[in-house]
């Protein structure tokens, strides 16, 4: 049995466990100086994958933001800028066939499963090349072929839904794990309690990932919870281990998820993992985030997950050129995707009436 203990929260360098939101105690940027140790559990290829994923998520979200400002994307959007280590670490630890259940802040989790940038941007732009040809939009990104089983815009609704997918896996004897992402604000809604209780009593193969970015929409989470840590401090209510990790360190996230997924696959039940992080942008497109104390954003930018990871790779003697090549590759992917979306036709209005019912149409009467 995989035994949880607080060591999962330790930084790669083996510093003190993350126990508070005091950033001084959080993971240092760099690992031990020098080359990768021979017994390193993550390895060179996975580290480059984690770096590449984080840069991809950062650049794709930044592009989405820019396109909004240019009015090429309508509606709303909820960006994950600053939270990339969680999406990258969780996805990099998954196996093909594992299922992701995302929230309305779901671009990063969708892209991290390998969904092409063009399909995501196309969806945001209402183009025919979009993931759902514009029928879902930013808050409902879904790509079943990549295991992205939907992005849910009603807070907490997908927690029981992820339980149901995990129940199917358990019932069928399948080995896939359902991974359910949500924010700190979700821990105050009824479906959170109902779903996690349900998963715990049935030992379902589901992993609940709470991205605690310190704000539920516009309100500091501390103002609306009676405990310090919205998910971790409530885990014991469901008989689950208290797991609190540094969500800005992709290595920590990756290692934690590997254990949680293994535990789920082994029939040992769900995990509830709180990842401490910070969103660099406001809650949504409409939010300039003026409620943040002065200097808070700047402090967290010192702990930018990509900055941390770049320094980590440098400290392991990864050459600058390697990272520069990845950066350039990602930039080209994002630029090409943008160009393709701008050139793509807008969605045909023919699909307005399709797929309401399983017969493909919308007729509710004869």
């Amino acid at each position, binding site marked *: 049995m995989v035994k949880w203990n607080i060591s999962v929260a330790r930084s790669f360098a083996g510093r003190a466990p993350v126990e508070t939101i005091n950033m001084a105690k959080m993971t240092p940027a760099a690992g031990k100086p020098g080359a990768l140790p021979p017994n390193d559990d993550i390895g060179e290829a996975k580290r480059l994958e984690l770096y590449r994923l984080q840069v991809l998520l950062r650049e794709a979200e930044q592009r989405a933001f820019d396109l909004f400002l240019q009015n090429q994307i309508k509606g709303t959007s909820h960006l994950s800028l600053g939270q990339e280590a969680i999406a990258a670490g969780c996805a990099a630890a998954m196996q093909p066939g594992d*299922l992701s259940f995302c929230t309305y802040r779901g671009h990063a989790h969708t892209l991290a499963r390998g969904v092409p940038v063009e399909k995501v941007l196309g969806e945001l732009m209402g183009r025919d090349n979009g*993931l*759902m*040809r514009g*029928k*879902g939009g930013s808050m*409902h990104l*879904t*790509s*079943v072929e990549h295991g992205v*089983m*939907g992005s*849910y815009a*009603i807070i907490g*609704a*997908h*927690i*029981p*839904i*992820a*339980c*149901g*997918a*995990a*129940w*199917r*896996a358990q*019932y*069928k004897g399948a080995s896939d794990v*359902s991974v359910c992402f949500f924010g700190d604000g979700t821990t105050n809604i*009824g*479906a959170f309690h*109902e*779903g996690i*209780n*349900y998963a715990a*009593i049935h030992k379902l193969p589901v992993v609940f990932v709470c991205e605690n970015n310190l704000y539920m929409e516009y309100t500091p989470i501390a103002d609306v919870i009676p405990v310090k840590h919205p998910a971790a401090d409530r885990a014991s209510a469901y008989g689950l281990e208290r797991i609190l990790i540094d969500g800005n360190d992709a290595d920590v996230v990756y290692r934690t998820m590997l254990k949680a997924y293994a535990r789920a696959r082994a029939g040992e039940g769900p995990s509830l993992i709180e990842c401490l992080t910070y969103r660099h942008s406001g809650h949504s497109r409409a939010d300039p985030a003026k409620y943040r104390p002065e200097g808070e954003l700047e402090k967290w930018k010192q702990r930018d997950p990509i900055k941390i990871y770049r320094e980590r790779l440098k400290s392991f003697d990864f050459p600058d050129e390697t990272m520069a090549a990845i950066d350039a590759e990602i930039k080209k992917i994002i630029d090409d995707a943008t160009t393709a979306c701008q050139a793509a036709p807008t969605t045909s209005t023919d*699909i307005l009436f*399709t*797929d*309401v*019912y*399983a017969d*493909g149409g*919308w*007729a*509710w*009467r*004869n």
Partner: protein
Amino acid sequence: MAELTYRDAVARAIAQEMTRDENVVFLGEDVAKAGGVFKATVGLLDKFGPKRVIDTPISEQAILGAAMGAAMTGLRPIAEIMFADFIAVCYDYIANEFPKTRYMTNGQVGCPLVVRCGGGGGSRFGAQHSQCIENWVMQFPGLKVVSPSSPVDVIGLLAAAVRDDDPVMFLEHKSLYAMKGEVPDGEILDRLGTAKILRAGTDATIIALGMMVHRSVAAAEKLQAEYGVNVEVIDVRSLVPLDTQCILGSVAKTGRLFTVEENPRVLGWGAEVVSIVADEAFYDLDGPPVRITTPNIPLPAADQLEDMAIPSVDRIVATIRKSLSA
């Protein structure tokens, strides 16, 4: 052919479908060991075991959410929400999740599940355990809504609902659980979206659902016997899909339309039926369409109050007589 109660028909229908397809699973509060608070699912746990027949916590959101996640990924869940009134605490799944997922995902994700619940008055349970909720659930594109009035329809329509690839609300009526009816042996499978003419007539058309079907038939018999008025009674059975052709055909024949609805008046299903008839068969009408409903009040508990609120045989007879003689 055997005589079966409406409640036993529920268990038989679920057993029929669980035997046919191992992907059919059943979950709800007190449904397994206790056999359901209405005793409509007795014996299923013994027959199919705890892996397929599951007692849940009092967590309506977990019940419907789990059913949805399972349905999205390959199972065919039947979820019970005990009293229909409790749909209100898990309404997000009915309103936002089940019916929209296929559309929002451009057809990538389906949601083939059935939600069963017991609704309706007559049990003196008061305002939070007696409602008919058809008008809560028929407004969502993507959702189907069925309500059987007899044991044989329970089996045939529930089987059709389980096999349907869309989410289906299956609204049973609590006051019908004890009713008996003839049920053929062997597999029974009906079709959603088909109304049934229970009594042919020439002078007026009654469209009814659930318990109101029985009161409407009794009213029609009384109108025939005592006043010589020949009323056609249609059991709608399925609000979505709605068999409008059956309704329009009947109105073309009789020239008069009455809906008999147990729900409170405002935005009841009958309003939609009347609207369709007004739009598409106005010149077939010889008089105004009339809706016979529970008044727009919460349901009271005491016998004499509840009886007065819900349309009775006498009220149906009196309303139709008055309208036809106006």
